[in-house]
Structure formats: C-alpha cells, structure tokens
C-alpha cells in the first residue's frame, strides 16, 4: 500500500512563508514555540480520554495564558467530558475486578477442605461490585445526552453510544463468566452428592445450595436483562443502516436543518404570541367598557 509523506515539504514552505511574513520581530518564544508550540497543544489533547487500553490519566490543566501569539490557545474540554471520563474509569475498574473474579471462580471450583463459604462470599462480593459499577455507569450515561441539534450534541451522542457498547459487552462477559461458573459448580455438587449419599446433612445442605444457585442465576439474568434493555436504544446494531457513516452524516444535516427551522418557527410564534395576547386582552377590555357604557346609559 503506497503512501507519500508531504509533511516535510509542507513545513519547509510554512517556515519560509512565516519568515517572509514576520521578517524583523521574531521573539524567541515564538520561534521556539514554532516547533514546541505544538507541544502544549499535543500534551493537552493527547491525554487519551476514552482509550481503554491505556491507563486512566487525568486531564492536565495547562494554563492557556502563557501561550504566545504563535501557538494556538487550547481551551479545556467541556464539562460533560468529566462524566464520560468517570464512566470509562468505572469500566476500567470493572474490567480489573472481572479478572479478580475469574481467579476467584477458579479457586472456588478447585476441591478444598474447607466449606468454601469464604470463597463464595468473595465471589458474591466481587459480582455485586461489578454489577454496581455497571449500574452506576449506566445511570451516568443518561446524563450525557444533550438536547438540541448541534455538533456538540452529536459528539455526546456518539460518546454515549461508544460507552454503551462497552458496558453492554462488559455485562455480557460478566454473565457468561457467571453462567460457566454456576454450571461447573452444579456439576461438582452433583458429583459430591453421588459420592456421600448416606450423609443426610450433606443432602439437605446441597438442596439449600441449589436454591442459592438458582437465586443467583435468576438475579444475574434479571440484572443483565435490565441493563440490555436500557442500553439497546443506544447501542448500534452492526451491519444495519444506522452503522453507516454516510447515513449518520445525512441525519446530522437534516436534524440541524430541522432544528433551525424549529427554532425559527418558535421565534415567530413567540413574537406573534405576545402580540396576539395583547390584542385579545385589549379587545376584551373594549367589550367590557362597551357593556359598562351601555349599562350606565340604561341605568341613568
């Protein structure tokens, strides 16, 4: 696959033209920031806000005041980015806990001498933590939505979709891990029951455990169904028309136009509304006065 890099030629022209434009006054800060002036720009924008493969790095609050005329003043991202960052950090934490959970599952499945209650508790705890994280993130996700057609709202919608897909994948993964664990646990229990049939205590305990297992399955399925229902509105179905870039661009264009029309209409009605109200009030007043006048002449 052939490509050609024209950046060098471009930079050469750019520097040549710059020196032509500003021949005498070239403050050292400007010239040094010509190469490094890309620096603050890159630093601020390169904090990967939503890249899950990297560690979560906080946003560097670079003071834009010290940038000279040559470099572009980079502003801080809008407030909603904080919400999306929180969600993505939650997703990160949930993933790490999933790894721990997998280990805990494996440990609990191994035959041991103890009654395994501690392992169970840890597993339950971890599962609940992960589910809690997912739920919290999902609630926060709703806050990302913005009204009104604008570029910002489109970005927010897309960020929402991306995070929704991540959350959905996470919950499906959790559910899969759980179901394999529960299945294997059930197999083990049945194996155990087969061995010590005469121990009544064991029998009764395994019935209770079976109920426990069923409850856990029901709970996890319930949770997953809830989450998937809430997220299914946001997640893009791959391969459909909604997944096409050109379709989304068209939609943006039409919604922006629509929005403009709506705004214009609203403006008009508002103006008209005021006048209409005034006129109506005046007309009513006129009628009242007329009635009063007639009454006055009749009475007097």
């Amino acid at each position, binding site marked *: 696959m052939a490509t050609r890099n024209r950046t060098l030629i471009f930079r050469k022209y750019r520097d040549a033209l710059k020196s032509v434009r500003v021949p005498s006054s070239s403050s050292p800060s400007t010239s040094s920031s010509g190469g490094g*002036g890309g620096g603050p720009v890159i630093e601020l924008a390169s904090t990967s806000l939503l890249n899950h493969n990297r560690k979560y790095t906080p946003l560097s609050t670079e003071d834009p005041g010290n940038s000279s005329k040559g470099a572009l003043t980079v502003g801080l991202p809008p407030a909603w980015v904080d919400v999306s960052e929180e969600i993505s950090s939650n997703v990160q934490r949930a993933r790490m806990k999933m790894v721990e959970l997998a280990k805990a599952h494996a440990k609990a499945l191994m035959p041991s001498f103890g009654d395994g209650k501690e392992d169970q508790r840890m597993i339950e705890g971890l599962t609940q933590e992960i589910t809690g994280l997912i739920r919290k993130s999902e609630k926060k996700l709703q806050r990302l939505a913005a009204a009104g057609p604008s570029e910002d709202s489109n970005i927010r919608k*897309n960020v929402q979709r991306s995070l929704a897909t991540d959350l959905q994948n996470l919950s499906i993964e959790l559910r899969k891990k759980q179901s394999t664990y529960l299945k294997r646990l059930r197999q083990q229990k049945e194996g155990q029951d087969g061995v010590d049939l005469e121990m009544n205590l064991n029998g009764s305990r395994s019935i209770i455990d079976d109920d426990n297992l069923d409850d856990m399955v029901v709970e996890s399925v319930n949770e997953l169904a809830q989450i998937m229902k809430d997220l299914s509105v946001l997640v893009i179905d791959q391969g459909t028309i909604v997944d096409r870039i050109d379709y989304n661009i068209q939609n943006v264009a039409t919604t922006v136009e629509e929005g403009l029309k709506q705004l214009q209409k609203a403006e008009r009605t508002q103006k008209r509304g005021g006048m209409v109200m005034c006129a109506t009030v005046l007309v009513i007043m006129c009628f009242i006065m007329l009635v009063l006048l007639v009454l006055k002449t009749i009475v007097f």
Partner: protein
Amino acid sequence: MVLVSAARDYVNRMLQDISGMKVLILDSQTVSIVSVVYSQSELLQKEVFLVELVDSISKSKESMSHLKAVYFLRPTLENIQHLRRQLANPRFGESHLFFSNMLKDTQIHILADSDEQEVVQQVQEYYADFVAIDPYHFTLNIPSNHMYMLPAVVDPPGLQQFCDRIVDGISTVFLALKRRPVIRYQRTSDIAKRIAQETSKLMYQQESGLFDFRRTEISPLLLIVDRRDDPVTPLLNQWTYQAMVHELIGIHDNKVDLSSTGKLPKDQQEVVLSSEQDAFFKANMYENFGDIGMSIKRMVDDFQQVAKSNQNIQTIEDMAKFVDSYPEYRKMHGNVSKHVTLVTEMSKIVGERRLMLISEREQDLACNGGQVAAFEAVTNLLNNESVSDIDRLHLVMLYALRYEKESPVQLMQLFNKLASQSPKYKPGLVQFLLKQAGVDKRTGDLYGNRDLLNIARNMARGLKGVENVYTQHQPLLFQTMESIIKGRLRDVDYPFVGNHFQQGRPQDVVIFIVGGTTYEESRSVALQNASNSGTRFILGGSVVLNSKRFLKDLEEAQRIAKYSTNVV
C-alpha cells in the same frame, strides 16, 4: 478482498497513530469511499466521535479545541479553498491532513501559507480514491457520466475533468496494489485511447518515481474498454440477486433506498447490502431468483424455530439462554426482515411489469438468432397493453442493436410504433444509440457471429439447450476475460499504449469500462476469480449502471449533441 482491504488499511492507518478524541472531516466523494469499507461503530472504537463534511463544518463557529481534526479529502480546488479558510481560523486543536490523491506543489504552498497558527501536524497522500463496493469491483461515482458519448469538441474542459477523474481513480488502484501495469485500450474508442495514454503518461513519466515498484516477471495488465462495445448488458433485465436489486430498485454505495416503495417500518426504509457484512448476502448475491427464494425460505424457517423456542420459556435455564443470545437474535431478525422485504418488493415488480415474459424475449434477442421470429415477437409485445413504456423501449433497442442491418423497413416500423405508443419517448433515441454503439462502432464480437469459432460455439449451445433461459446471457466481458487468460487478446483490436509490450499471460488484470459497469459483469468477474484460473481480475467503471442510468446518460448525451449541432 483486495480493494476493500486496501481501503480499510488506509483508513486504519490514518486513525491509529492519533490519540484522543477526533473528528473526521470528509468531502462528498470520500464519504462514499470510507462508508463502504468502514462502519460507524468501528469509528467509535477508534475514538472518532464526530464525522462531518468539509463544506458544512465551516458554517459553525464554535471552537472545539479539545478535538483533533483528521481531514480526508480529494485534492480538488474547492477542498483546498475550504481548507484555507479553516486553517486560517482553526476550530480544532490539531489538524492532520490526508489526501486521496497526489497534491500539486502549488496546493501545498497555498495550504502552508494559510496555516499561520501551525495547527497542521502532518500532510500525507493516502491513495484511496476509488469506491470499493465489492472485493473485486470498484466504481468512481462520476455524476457527468454521459460525457463519454460526446465528441471532444462539445465540451473540452468537461471532458478533461471526466478523464482526469478516471485517471486519478485508476492510478490509485495501482498505487494501492503497488504495481505498475502495461496498458492496453480498445482501438475503436477515442476516449479509451485518451485515458490510456494519459494514465501511461502519469505512471511512466510524470510520477515515475512514485510508481517505481519492485518489478515482477510479468507486469499486470490494465485494459480500458468502452461501454458502447457492449450496450446490450445494461439493457437486460437481471435475475441474480445483486444485479436484480440494482435493476429493479437501485443500489448506491451498497445501500438500497426502499422509501418510495410503500409503507415500511422505519428501520427497513433504507438497508445495507454489503457482501462484507452480511453472510447470507455474500452466499447468495450471485444466485438466481428461484434459488434465492428457497434460501430465504430456509432462513425464515430457521429464524421461526429460534423465535418459537424463545417464546417457550419455562425454566430458568431457558430464560438465561434467551437473555444471553438476545443480541444475536436481534441481528438475525433484522437480517431476515431485510431480505424478505427486498424479495417481496422485487416479486411485486416482476408481477406488475410482466418481467418474466419480457425478459424471456430480451434474452432471446441478446443470445439467439432468427430475425423474423424476433420481429414478430417484439411487435406482439409492443401491442400488448400491459407492457410498460420502459420495457417497450428496451425491446426495440435490443432488436435494433442486433438486426440493425437486416431489415431496415421493419426496423422503421418498430420505431414508428414505439413513438406513437409511448408519449414520453424522446424521438430518435434508438437511432442515437445505434449511432453510438452500432455494429460499425463495436470491436468485440457481441453476438458471436463474426468469428467462426464463436458461431460454432453458439450453434453447439443452441443444440444443447440452456439451463435457465433467463440467465443465458454472458456479457461480452466474459469473452474478453477468456481471451486474456489464454493470452489471445488481439493486438489489432486492443493495442498497447506506446511501446508497452507483454510477453505471456498476466496474473493481475484490471479492466476499466468507461461509461460504467454492471453487476452482471461484476458477477462474471467474481465467478471467474473463484474458478482459480491463475489470473485475478478486478473490474472498475465510472459508475455502476442499470438500464435506467444507461438510458438517462443516453438521453442526456442526445440532448447535448442536438443542442450543440443546433448552435453550430
């Protein structure tokens, strides 16, 4: 896979090294180029949270300096102007410029001049200037396609623009494949010759450094042919899935717009038909209508079984299984609805227009001889009330193309009948077609009646009978491909450009049809590639034709030709 994967690789490379939130800015052409190979969800994974067109993005004034801008544009005059304005008042933190074709030095100069704030971090040329609709089929979506039918004197700058776009597109195909071809063209077509020569000049003289790739023993072949050498294929009704959908409804950039066909639920008004994303479509796109009906019925039955088991939830395990498999179920449901809707719609059209009857006659006209019988059949169909105007026009055109010289009186009769019956028929259209693509203008042996070998082959086929009377037509392209494989493409008919020469049989061949390709031809190419003959073919055209588009181009060319002769 070749074309699609090349375009995907380019887009991947554009996005992968830039971290952080990005906005992707495209122009109206690169939108098509990117949309057919990359999906919105994949963009979101690469942290591209906004996609905009370059002309609309200048309208807004809000500054979004927390975003990095990735521009992927064609290096045209308007785009450079847009860029100038945006670089002068940058809205985004950084700008990365990628162009789909070669930049001129003056253009780089202009951009450098306007980048006072130094937001541009890189300027690259990523050669994806073609729309890769199928793995071995690309198009250029040229709006003024009718240009190829007009003589050069009518509109020299327009024609130059047309040729430039084609040369740009073809050269990027070879840059993406990293090969430099030997070029041949159809002798009887001036425009094919012109494009061949300009491409050769670009690859061997102007940018010879860029195209100087590692030479293999046998160079690939670029063959440039003219649509008018085979005017029959775009006029025929199609019965294989992809070609049929395009002929009856219309596919554009792998999307089908069903909104004009009655009441449909909102999510079925526009659907995607892409062999890369839809496994059922990939398996059935070249099958004929009858087989497709069976396959869809099987798919619906499978789906109904799954749906029934989903409704029958009794134990907790069933419930769990349902919730787990819900995303797949949803996807399957969408896919089944899509195909059922398409096939239902097409069946409706087939019934309304009596296409089975008409198509049988069309295939006869295209493949078999017998002028007298043909004349009778066409006259009968013209007299038939239920035949639509469009189909009458097709029939007369096909008759005229085949029996142009045989019985002029009867031909005139048909013209008159057509003109009297169809009020919207533009008089002289069929004659215009004959002038453009008549037997004197054609190189190839369209009806298999020039070459003794072909005549013999036809007779043998007639005796053997055909499997399916509706798909018996083979486009001329098939014969051309066979000749290339056997190394028997005649120099007299398809000369080399300049002093190019090729010994032996090429292993990679790109065939470009000036005037447009059809899905019937791309099917032919795909089946040929699947047969492992040692040669890999890639097909490209200025547009993808169906009969409607072909007639539109013809009418437009006729109108302009008439206007210019009137003026002169």
